[in-house]
């Protein structure tokens, strides 16, 4: 059973076709790496060189991002319902889960290794990252197994994990922080920050999944809302659109101990927040000179913002919508349009600090942020296309591809809708670095296509029925 358990665990979460697509993707992405290695062996292939800071930032955030997604795969409710109650020895289960977890968490390593060659020749720090990543993987797997099969408190496990990690760091195994620091000082700081964030995210994600099996009400936070949304004051015009554009704040209630000021938020307040964020980014940019790593930090910040934003999009995407309440209240055409435009509005509002920053950078003739422009401009439309590809064009069940939010189970299904989003984002990012103007034009074209789709009555109606025909109401 142990022999086949990892296979079962993978097969119970990912379809064969999806696995094949992933493997093909890795092969395709890995090809440039092989070409570079070939070049090193004598073939003369010119690979453009890009700033190390930029790549380090992107790849570190990519790691963090992948951690968050993969954390949801580790343990699902059916594992406990079925496998644990199956009478298998816990040691065999632990071994099976360990192998599976290592296989699963190796994917990001493979992925990063495969795209390394596309973007930079600076191998040393990237391999260091991979070493750090593997250290995290082992820590997480250990913690995961401990959590599953021991009665120890979380504190002890956290402590044990951090001691192990600290020892790894002190011993500089095998490349370690020391070698990264010796190359360029901001690396160490960034890696440590990311390392801790990634670890915290992964541990939280793992523990949350395990504890959600027992319906951990603490996860949900306080039961009462403090500031009630004044729906009774809404004038009744386009309520779905209005609600969608503000729903992110409702979503914060699950994360912010129920103290979200959702009921107090007005659209006008958002502009003040936007202005503060934009000013903050600008100040960092101007105050920290490049020699002090200002550029690195700024890039890091921008990329964190972009990825953080994308993660947020996934969490409150269609899974939180209630078709039977809202979309079923008006015609399919109107409800789909209101829903999509509302979400786009929200996404524009939230990415506007970066858009403003890029515009300011453009006015000041600094090309640095122009390289990031395509990825930022693409941001608001990021969720739109995966939704259409899965829900309407491929006619697949969007809800199954995200995770199902039900009364008992939370966080147990997979964010596969994210995969094309990440691929698209990386593609746009790469195009933006190589050919910023082409990237910007491509982004603008994507908006035009989206507008055509939204204007099409047939497509909008198809969108509505694509949702409800999959049993999602």
């Amino acid at each position: 059973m142990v022999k086949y358990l990892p296979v079962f665990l993978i097969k119970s979460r990912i379809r064969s076709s999806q696995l094949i697509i992933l493997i093909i993707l890795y092969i395709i992405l890995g090809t440039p790496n092989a070409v570079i290695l070939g070049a090193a062996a004598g073939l003369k292939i010119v690979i453009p060189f890009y700033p190390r800071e930029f790549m380090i930032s992107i790849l570190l955030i990519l790691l963090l991002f992948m951690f968050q997604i993969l954390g949801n795969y580790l343990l699902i409710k059916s594992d406990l319902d079925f496998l644990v109650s199956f009478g298998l020895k816990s040691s065999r289960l632990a071994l099976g889960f360990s192998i599976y977890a290592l296989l699963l968490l190796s994917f990001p390593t493979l992925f990063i290794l495969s795209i390394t060659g596309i973007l930079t020749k600076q191998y040393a720090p990237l391999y260091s990252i991979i070493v750090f990543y593997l250290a995290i993987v082992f820590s997480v797997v250990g913690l995961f197994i401990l959590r599953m099969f021991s009665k120890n408190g979380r504190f002890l496990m956290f402590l044990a994990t951090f001691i192990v990690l600290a020892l790894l760091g002190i011993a500089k195994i095998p490349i370690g922080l020391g070698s990264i620091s010796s190359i360029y000082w901001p690396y160490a700081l960034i890696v440590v920050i990311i390392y801790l964030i990634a670890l915290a995210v992964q541990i939280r994600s793992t523990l949350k999944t395990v504890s959600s099996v027992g319906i951990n009400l603490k996860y949900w936070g306080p039961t009462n809302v403090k500031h009630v949304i004044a729906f009774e004051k809404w004038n009744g015009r386009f309520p779905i659109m209005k609600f969608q554009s503000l729903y992110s704040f409702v979503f914060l209630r699950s994360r912010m101990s129920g103290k979200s000021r959702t009921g107090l938020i007005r659209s006008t307040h958002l502009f003040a927040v936007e202005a503060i964020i934009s000013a903050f980014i600008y100040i960092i940019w101007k105050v920290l000179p490049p020699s002090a790593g200002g550029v690195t930090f700024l890039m890091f910040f921008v990329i964190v913002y972009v990825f953080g934003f994308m993660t947020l999009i996934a969490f409150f995407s269609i899974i939180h919508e209630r078709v039977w309440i809202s979309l079923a209240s008006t015609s399919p055409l109107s409800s789909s349009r209101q829903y999509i435009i509302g979400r786009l509005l929200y996404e524009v509002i939230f990415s506007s600090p970066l858009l403003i920053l890029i515009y300011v950078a453009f006015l000041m003739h600094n090309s640095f942020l122009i390289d990031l422009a395509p990825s930022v401009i693409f941001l608001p439309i990021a969720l739109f296309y995966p939704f259409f590809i899965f829900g309407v064009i491929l006619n697949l069940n969007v809800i199954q591809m995200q995770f199902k939010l039900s009364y008992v189970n939370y966080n147990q299904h997979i964010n596969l809708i994210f995969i094309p989003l990440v691929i698209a984002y990386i593609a746009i990012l790469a195009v933006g670095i190589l050919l910023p103007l082409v990237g910007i034009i491509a982004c603008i074209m994507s908006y035009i296509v989206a507008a055509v789709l939204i204007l099409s009555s047939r497509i909008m109606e198809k969108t509505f029925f694509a949702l409800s025909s999959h049993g999602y109401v």
Partner: protein
Amino acid sequence: MGAAIYFSNVSFGYSDKDVLSEATFAVNPSEKVSIIGANGVGKSTTLKLAAGLLRPRGGSVQVLGMSPDTREVKGHIGYLPEDATPYLLLSVQENIEYSAVLRGVKEVSEATEEMLELFDLTHYRLAKAQSLSRGNLQRLSLAIMFVHKPDVLIMDEPLNYLDLSMQETLVKIIKKSNSTVFLSTHVVSTAARLTDKVMLLSNGRVIWKGELSEVESQLQKGETIEAKLAKMLR
């Protein structure tokens, strides 16, 4: 006066299987009808078609003489899916108010208060829906469905999760109401308590519609009504 709900040769299927095949039936205004059938036979699908959540592949569905897709009809329909889940991060009060706003209720606060009292949710008004028990979630879902006082009630297993007291409350509300009721259930007692007639769905068609008393009159000695209905559905 025409039918409140009218299916005319309606065909519908999902990508891998056909569910309804030229189904034809009518539910008259103020009539209360339960639909009974085997698992996967298309009961929920029939309700979704009536609520305008699905569009038939063939034939036509009319509610109050119009397509259920239209905004005009939506305001007259109250739909409760099986295991209905409201917005979990909205409070009980917010869920009801939002539903009222969506359906163009003029006095949103008053309508909300009325629903809170009717379904005994006043105590939970500020509670996030995710913190409610399954039974209270069902009460909230019923409040969301009733807030605009619909003329046509379409419900999938409405008594699920409700305690006995709330079941009685709902039965009284429905019996007293002049609305058309079209519901799906596996429980014969639910059909008997909430509706006057039952409709049997099998092989994509309605095979029988009538009063339960007609079935009871045909029972053989020792035979239960459930056994008789199961036999009729074969």
